């Protein structure tokens, strides 16, 4: 099932407990598929649970249609297919860990 991904780099999102933003977009080729991942940073600076910052990676999925439309604010939208195969997840995770040194990798 494909999903829309809105490209919005360097926009800070706040919750009551902290903030995060996505600051970098990259594509990794895997078995003929182009898998989109983003690097993000954030911090829980006002949570009851304490405070801490982190860098992390978000993997929306493999690109089906690249920046084919725009949202109301003019941000480009791509169609992606979320990664479900555990083997592919593991390989993408390893790639990001080795290239970017980021252990926290989340998949859509």
């Amino acid at each position, binding site marked *: 099932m494909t999903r829309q991904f*809105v490209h919005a780099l360097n926009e800070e999102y706040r919750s*009551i*407990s*902290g903030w*995060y933003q996505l600051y970098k977009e990259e594509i990794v080729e895997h078995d003929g598929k182009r898998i989109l991942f983003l690097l993000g*940073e954030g911090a829980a600076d*006002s949570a*009851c*649970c304490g405070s801490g910052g982190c860098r992390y990676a978000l993997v929306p999925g493999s690109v089906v249609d690249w920046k084919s439309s725009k949202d109301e604010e003019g941000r480009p939208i791509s169609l992606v297919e979320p990664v479900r195969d555990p083997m592919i997840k593991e390989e993408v995770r390893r790639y990001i860990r080795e290239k970017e040194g980021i252990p926290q990798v989340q998949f*859509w």
Partner: protein
Amino acid sequence: MPGSIRNRVAILGMGCTRFGERWDASDADLIVDAAYQAFKDAGIGPEEVQAAWVGTSTGRTGMTISEPLRLQYIPVTRVENACATASDAFRNACYSVAAGIYDMVLAIGIDKFKDSGISGLGDGGTPGPSHSMIAESTPPRSFAMLATTYFAKYGLSYEEGKHMIGRVSWKSHQNGMRNKNAHFQGNVTMDQIINAPMVSWPLGLFDCCGVSDGCAAAIITTPEIAKARKKDPVFVKALQIAMAPRDGNFTQNFDFLHVEATVRAAERAYEEAGIKNPREEISMAEVHDCFSITEAVTMEDLRFSPRGKVRDDIENGFFDLDGKLPVQLDGGLKCFGHPIGASGLRMLYEMYLHLQGRADELLNPGFPSRQLPNPKLGLTHNLGGAPDGCAIFVGIVGLEGA
């Protein structure tokens, strides 16, 4: 049950400050603000208050309020019961009126965290063997365990489970943005919630509440005085506390899919209030949503949703403001905020406003009404501690005939 509180006491007035990072306000400022709102709403002066109960997790003795309010030598009791602190202060105040000892009392909850220089709450470390890793545990770690087992037990994929708890937070943000006294009033999308970094897997940043500064207060009196002074007072229907033996981490019987103390307190409250089918009879609720998964599981523990089925209700909008049983109408802990010692009275304040038809007093300009049409009964719930062991409060308030 030996006795019931149902319709034996009434709320004459309430007040609640704006919650948030109140760099501008001291604890005294917040206490005076909330207390005098409540005095004004009740139509009384402070000299009419005969006794008071103050809930706070950071304050000290009854002087936490007698000093800033310059109360004149009346009895004041300080109450602490983690996140159920304010509700327990309210419960004790109600009992004193029901017992016939007083007929005009104050219950007030206050916490002011934002002068400590650190984020978050300490590990509460009284010196001990410190062998227990539970003493070192953090709240998100404990509550994430509910999500881990809930997903595993009901066969939810990570994506399905993550969407379910994200939808819980999304709904609260929809409500919180309408409320001008809420700590966090921003709009967020489902994607923004899902894309956030993990705090304690599988709970992300938007699954967690924050800490806030704030104060809320209530004036409690007898039904006779309330009816004489006010046309539509709110009556107390049930007040229940259940304290767990804290055995969840030590017995294989505990399933990490529910919170037993919530079930016990809720069933006693329903009996006290004469409620058979809470899903149908309760009009609205404010529950302890320290984490999104806590709220989801609580919906099942309160019998709002059948066991294992809360996902359907969440995803179908059953608990949305325009749903069948709106929950977190003011944004909950997640958006209105969480000054531990004040939260229970803040929840009660939201029920009180809706029952009196005054919810739009706090409406942010430009938003559609947030007032529920004809609510009869409102439920409040607090969880102090962790799923494996906690203090639970369940209270029900409503109009006289409800």
